[in-house]
Every structure is written in C-alpha cells, then in structure tokens.
C-alpha cells in the first residue's frame, strides 16, 4: 500500500496531516475490498492569434499538459488526487478524501473544484472528455483570469436521490476556504500552506436528470465567496480590502439524437470593499455550446461566450486577460479508442484594463488522449 511508504513522510506540516489521515483511513478500512486507479489525461495544444486592435501584436504557443489522476477506494472510503503538470505550471489540483455513509451519499474533505461551475465540475482537467479545446470564459481557472473561484478547500456533501419515475436529483453543497485576490487575479488556497489567510466560500449545485443514467441534466448553481485581497501585491489593489461575490445561475446539458446542447448562464454580484467605500458591481456571463455528431468519430461544434453588462465592470477590470466574448467553431476527430484531434477557430474579445476590449482572432489545434 503506497501510503505506508516512507516517502510519504513529510517535510512540512500540511502534507504530514494529509498523509497521516490517509494512512489512518486506509488502514482502518483494510478489511473492505479496495481498488486503485491511475489515469493520465494528456494533451498538446498549439495556439496562434492576431490582434485586430493592435496589428503588431501576435501571440503563439505550444503547450503540453499531463493531468495525473489517482484514486483509492474501499466500500465506504475514497481518496482522489489530481496533479496537473504542463509547460506553464505544476499544481496539485485536487486532493480529497470521502466517506460514503450510505450508498448514494458522500462526504468529502480536502481541496476540491467548486460545484458552482457546471463545466468545471463535469470535466475538471480531463481535457480529452470535453469536446472543445477551450473552456468557456465563465469557467476559466483562477490563473487564467477566471472571474469565479474554481478551487475550494473544505467539506462538501454530495447526495443523489433516485426518483420514482426513473429520474434522479443530485445536490452538492460545499463550504471551505475561498481563493484570495492578488495581482494576477484569484489565487486558490494553498493546501500545502494552511496558514495563508483566506475567506469563506459556500457553493451549491442542484441537478435534475430525467433519466438517471444518461447525461441529460439541468439545474441551478450558486455560490457565496469572500475573497481577501492582497492589497500590497499591486498598486491597483492598494485600497481594496475584500471582494464579496454572490453568484447564481442555471445550466443545461441536453442531447437529442445527434445534437447536444451545453449551456450555462450566471449572474455575478460583487461588492468591492475599498478602504473608504464599497462599490457594487453586477453583470451576467454565459455560454451556449452546440455540438453535432454525424457519427461516433466526428463532432462539429460551436460556442458563443458572452457577457451582459460587463463592459465597464470594476471587478473585471482587475482581470484584464478575461475573455469577455468568444465566438468559436471547431471540429473534433476521435480515433484509436481514446485519442482525439481537435481544431478551433475563434473571434475573441479580451476585457483589457482600459475599459474597452482587445479584439483578436485565434486558431488552435490539439491532440488529447487518456491512458
């Protein structure tokens, strides 16, 4: 059993607590049947863009990504760790332990992805499982100028009810440490540095599935996030102390024969608490992605990411790289069981910090796979 390995002995307190908890849980559940699983979600992306606002601006990159997922399960206990390694970053994305006190209910503890963002809670970092290369801007990660926290460290309760007509109702409620806000935008709570100060996040998702075991679902998502501001990290944040964010939205994932619709719209209400005043800022963000699958291997898709009332948002001006509008078309080819090649072209508007938008066109090509 890997958690008995001496390499688990930590150098700092954070991992030590995690290792001890895992050792305790895995040994106390040793009598139950256990299973382990390791998955590698991998992808290579190329990206190129040309700015309309400033024709001299050109950007391009090639990025390789490996998302490593490990899970350990017994009848009542589960452990999951997700570690992302790319040419840009290396980060422990999720680290959580769960206890199922009955068959359809699980209590999780640890660092998780928020449930209040539908795409995020469905695909996490499993690039191969999402049809498109890009994520909707509403669903972007903290370090990609995402406007809503993606990572929460604390407790979450996941319960599924089977209804009499073959439908099911699933609700997830989580509470824990929210990200803070620094010079680069949101910064997730560092599970390996528990002494860093962070506010509270409470997030919620309610999903209804008309047929319990099929992907069709729709529902409501909501969150309350208190984000402490690292005022000293940037002159733009000097007088800002805290951002209180409330979000509420809806989502749908619907399939009809060869067509699929995945969409979410969220209302954001932010209170920016400066030293001498509180500025209220509210706007809406959403996306609609439509997919057409003429056969098992080919998928044509398009997505429109839009903001409503966000143009002069003081909150989004703190996130100048946020993509407020993207209109995208793409084609995906699935081959060899678990490989895919995807191409996307898009007309994109970035928020920018000057109140107007930075327009550019982009194209992307990606190979993704899972092993």
């Amino acid at each position: 059993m890997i958690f008995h390995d001496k390499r688990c002995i930590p150098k700092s307190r954070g991992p030590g607590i995690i290792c001890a908890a895992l050792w305790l849980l895995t040994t106390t559940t040793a009598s139950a049947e256990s299973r382990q699983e390791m998955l590698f979600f991998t992808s290579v992306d190329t990206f190129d863009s040309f700015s309309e606002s400033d024709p001299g601006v050109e950007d391009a990159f090639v990025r390789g990504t490996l998302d490593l997922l490990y899970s350990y399960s017994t009848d009542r206990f589960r452990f999951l760790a997700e570690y992302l390694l790319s040419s840009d970053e290396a980060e422990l994305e999720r680290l959580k332990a769960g206890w199922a006190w009955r068959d359809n209910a699980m209590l999780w503890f640890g660092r998780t992805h928020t449930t209040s963002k539908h795409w995020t809670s469905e695909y996490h970092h499993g690039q191969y499982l999402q049809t498109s290369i890009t994520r909707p801007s509403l669903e972007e990660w903290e370090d990609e100028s995402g406007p809503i926290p993606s990572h929460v460290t604390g407790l979450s309760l996941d319960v599924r009810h089977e209804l009499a007509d073959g439908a099911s109702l699933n609700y997830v409620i989580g509470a824990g440490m929210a990200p803070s806000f620094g010079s680069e935008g949101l910064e997730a709570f560092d599970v390996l540095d528990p002494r860093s100060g962070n506010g509270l996040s409470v997030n919620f998702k309610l999903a209804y599935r008309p047929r319990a075991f099929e992907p069709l679902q729709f529902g409501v998502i909501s969150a309350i996030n208190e984000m402490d501001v690292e005022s000293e990290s940037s002159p733009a944040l000097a007088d800002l102390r805290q951002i209180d964010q409330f979000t509420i939205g809806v989502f749908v994932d619907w399939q009809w024969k060869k067509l699929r619709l995945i969409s979410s719209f969220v209302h954001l209400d932010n209170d920016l608490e400066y030293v001498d005043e509180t500025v209220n800022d509210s706007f809406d963000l959403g996306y609609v992605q439509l997919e057409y699958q003429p056969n098992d291997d080919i998928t044509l898709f398009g997505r429109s990411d839009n903001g409503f009332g966000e143009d002069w948002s003081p909150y989004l001006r703190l996130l100048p790289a946020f993509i407020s509008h993207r209109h995208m078309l793409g084609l995906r080819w699935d081959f060899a069981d678990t490989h895919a090649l995807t191409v996307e072209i898009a007309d994109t508007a970035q928020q920018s910090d000057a109140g107007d938008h930075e327009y550019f066109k982009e194209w992307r090509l990606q190979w993704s796979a899972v092993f």
Partner: protein
Amino acid sequence: MPGLRHILLLTAAFVLLPCNARAERQVVLVTGDSCPVREVSSLDVRKAYLGVTVSVDGRRLRPIRLIGDEMLSSIFYQSVVHMSRKSYERRALSLALKYGTPRLEMVDSVDDAAQAVRGRECGVVYMWKDDVDRLSGIKTVRLLWQGE
C-alpha cells in the same frame, strides 16, 4: 403411406433441430455459490454496471466485465447497460475523473471470470449460459439476453 410420412418427419427434424439449437443462446448473470443473493433485477444489473453502488438482500454486488468475446460484449452494451460502447467507456472515465470511482475489473476468459466471482463476495459477471453449465461453484441470478 405411414412409412413415407415418418421419413419426411425425421428429415424435417434433422434439418430443424440444429437450427433451433443455434437459435437458443442465452446470456446470464452469475455469482459464486457462496453469495446468498438468489435473484437480481435487470435495473439493478444495469445500475451496478453503470458504476452505481447496488446492494441486494444487504449484499453489495461487485460487477466484473468479461471482455474477451466480441459478441458477448455487444450484447452487454445493447441489452445490459443500453449504451453504445463509446458512451459507456466515456461514462466510466467521467466517473473516475469526477468521483474517483474505479473502473470495473475486466477479465478476458470465461475461466478467469468464474474464478473472479468465486473469489469475491457477491462478485457478478455475465457469460453465455452454455459456459455456466460446464463450470462449478457459480450460479445464475438473472437471464440477461436470449436470441440467435
């Protein structure tokens, strides 16, 4: 002419009997003799193979997939989980990604399948009924499919 009638009937029987024998294939769900479960509903079989925890008579079912037989696998996708192969495999990956739900244990041969269910408390696996008849220590708990 009774003699001619008998000859015609016998000829017809010789022609039809092998056809009927080929037509009557069945796929069943089996578990080990030591498992007290006597019958599992179709819905519970489907749920178990879709990664949902299923308990019958207080015993948790532990599904195993037999993947060595292409026709058996096709019947599994169409008649047990009611999904295309691709949709089923994606669902298994999605559950692993979202919840850490381990994908089901897979075996290649009937003998390995029988050994696996005998070795696990209420392990269940689907196989041809013809194979069940020649194996010991396992019992049928559900007829899953019948046809040509």
